[in-house]
């Protein structure tokens, strides 16, 4: 569904995206992760046709983003980090206008509003909504016009856990219908839960690309931190997974029924910090 081949982009003599290549399959949720300035937003800009790549080729939904841009934009939906909505207009007016530009009729707008739980608030002006509802309206907008690929920039940033869970559920339901989703996020939990595969970028390079579980599994020095009741007091110990004694110790403690908590240090967050150099600080 998306083919990126040797994409590069230079700003003021600085190569912000450097020969990045990856593919995204139809119906996949793909996450682009990386610290600020890693080149994610520029990559997204090139993928959505907002920026022209300096070199390399990108095909989205079968169309070249430079030479067939007008056909390509009809296949995509984009939710930006900024609300990108008209504050004086109501939820419904915003969706109708922005939907009309993507060829969505009134019926489709109604269906999308229902799906995103916006029906009750459809007559409220955007300026009177909370951040969560604005975000929801903006996300709903990206799905108007029956796009085949939807790009989401920080879709749940700053939202409460219930809203995040609800949005994840809606995004998964779109995936089940065969839509391809590409998102950027700084939330590693979100990436691990939602994405089929993630790409980690830093300084314009794509450092790793794989399913989150595979990336975590590649960590050589994973440990589990175990907390258990030890003769009336709580004890905590870190056990290296590579240590041959660890399985025996773990199963003994579990058999005794004294384990309070097991916490794995191997997470997507660890992988991210190692790859992007965050673990050195």
């Amino acid at each position, binding site marked *: 569904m998306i083919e990126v081949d040797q994409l590069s982009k230079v700003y003021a003599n600085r190569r912000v995206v450097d020969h990045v290549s990856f593919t995204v399959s139809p119906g996949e949720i793909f996450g682009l992760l990386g610290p600020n300035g890693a080149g994610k937003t520029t990559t997204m800009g090139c993928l959505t046709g907002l920026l*022209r790549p300096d070199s390399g080729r990108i095909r989205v939904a079968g169309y070249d983003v430079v030479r067939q841009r007008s056909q390509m*934009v009809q296949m995509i939906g*984009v939710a930006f980090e900024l609300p990108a*909505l008209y504050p004086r207009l109501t939820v419904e007016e915003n969706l109708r206008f*922005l939907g*009309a*530009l993507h060829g969505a009729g009134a019926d489709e707008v109604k269906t999308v509003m229902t799906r995103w739980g916006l029906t009750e608030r459809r007559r409220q002006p955007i300026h009177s909504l909370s951040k969560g509802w604005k975000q929801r309206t903006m996300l709903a907008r990206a799905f108007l016009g029956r796009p085949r690929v939807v790009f989401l920039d920080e879709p749940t940033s700053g939202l409460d856990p219930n809203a995040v869970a609800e949005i994840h559920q809606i995004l998964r339901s779109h995936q089940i219908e065969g839509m391809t989703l590409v998102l950027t996020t700084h939330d590693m939990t979100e990436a691990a839960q939602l994405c089929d595969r993630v790409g980690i970028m830093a300084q314009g390079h794509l450092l790793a690309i794989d399913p989150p579980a595979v990336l975590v599994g590649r960590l050589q020095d994973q440990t589990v931190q175990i907390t258990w009741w030890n003769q009336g007091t709580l004890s905590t110990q870190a056990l290296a997974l590579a240590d041959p004694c660890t399985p025996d110790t773990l199963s003994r403690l579990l058999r005794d029924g004294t384990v309070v908590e097991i916490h794995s240090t191997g997470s997507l967050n660890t992988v991210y910090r190692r790859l992007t150099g965050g673990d050195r600080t």
Partner: protein
Amino acid sequence: MTPLKGMWVMERHMARDWLRNRTLWIMLLLPTGIFWAVLHTGTSPHRRWFVASWLLFAQVMTGLMIAASYWLEEREQGTWQALRVSSVPIGWIMGAQAVFVGLLAAVSQAGVLMVSCGPWHGSLGLGMVLGGFVFTGFGLLIGITSPAQRTGSLLAAAAMIVFFLSALIWPGLGENTGIHSWLSWSPAIVTVRVMRAGLQGSPLSWTMIGAMVGWGSLIIALLICLLHREYHRGLPM
């Protein structure tokens, strides 16, 4: 969606959005209101020049200021990006914005004309329409080149004052001075001269019309270059 339908969708949207904006109403009615007040304080031997200058004020107030603030608002709230990834070509979207603001400028000028109680001639309309679009174009240019709403608004206000004041002081400058002939080709003076001819019923000066069309073409060329630059390098930071 055809580009024309896209333009129509944009026009309806802008009307719905901007007619809820109180600032727009003030900017739209202010030229007529002030002109009405000034006219009722007495008559002036320079009435024709005065009417033409006030029509220019209506053009820069509505055309330039509204176009700039509309564009800056689009950029600041991120809706410009959303419009750029729609299936309507960006040139048509900007065209729709220019038509809407140009119409507002025409409404504002019509208000001034109604208060001035004529007489005027059909050729005046050409100056009003062309001038309206030239200053709308300047507004879009300011909007697209300004990094933030505050600086853009300041720049638009400064440009409005410069255009209006230059038209006011121009008749007082010595005709043989270099600045007089240099300023006579500025968009403000060219517009006022065309409209003055329309008010007097004089034949149209094709040189002046050509100059206005030239300014309009230059602005369109600059807008195309800036949009092209935005696509290659991103928004001005």
